[in-house]
């Protein structure tokens, strides 16, 4: 079954308190290529590597069905800075 953005978001929200989620399907709909951006207080005090490992684990089943997966993980404060820089 191909992954869609709704399922992916549900899988994330189930285990993570996100204040903001962006899921971009970069595959033109074939469901194999996703870029996600997550903003969560749960990331506070954790290194990027730890955050990514956490998300990789959380979405293990979904990622194994994808061709490409990219993630950005911010705390709310970091996300403000990220937006301010105009990225």
């Amino acid at each position, binding site marked *: 079954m191909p992954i869609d953005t709704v399922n992916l978001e549900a899988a994330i929200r189930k285990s993570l308190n996100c204040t903001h989620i962006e899921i971009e399907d970069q595959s033109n709909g074939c469901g194999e290529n996703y870029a996600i951006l997550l903003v969560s207080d749960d990331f506070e005090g954790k290194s*990027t*590597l730890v955050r990514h490992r956490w998300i990789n684990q959380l979405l293990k089943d979904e990622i194994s069905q994808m061709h*490409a997966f990219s993630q950005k993980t911010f705390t709310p404060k970091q996300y403000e800075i990220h937006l301010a820089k105009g990225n």
Partner: protein
Amino acid sequence: MLRTALRSSLLRPNVLARFSAARFLSQEARATIQNAVSASPVVLFMKGTPDHPECGFSRAAIQILGLQQVPAEKLKTYNVLADPELRSGIKEFSEWPTIPQLYVNGEFVGGCDILLSMHQSGELEKLLESNDVIPKVEGEAVPVHAA
């Protein structure tokens, strides 16, 4: 009692061995990958080669290492497309689901996303400097980003 204990101790290694063979890397494969990750100060597992990357993420990773001026003699790359065993093995070894994967002095750093964000924040330069991969910049004297 003794017999039961004996039997279970005889049986268990077998069950474990079969279980681990199915689920985990063999000792041998793990040792091979351990050697690979520590073969050079900087090791990149990628799709394709530095001159001919076969995936956008691997291309980005090798470009970042180039921008950081990682000397060729300190960098070793492995093309996972040429070695299916390595391709699945390294994912399990690093507990990381995607390629590319970067190691510095035998330590896992991350994949493309992490590499890119560390490059942008300056953390990657610091990491490479503190691992003696690239020379430390003294104060403001040498403008590394002049170009």
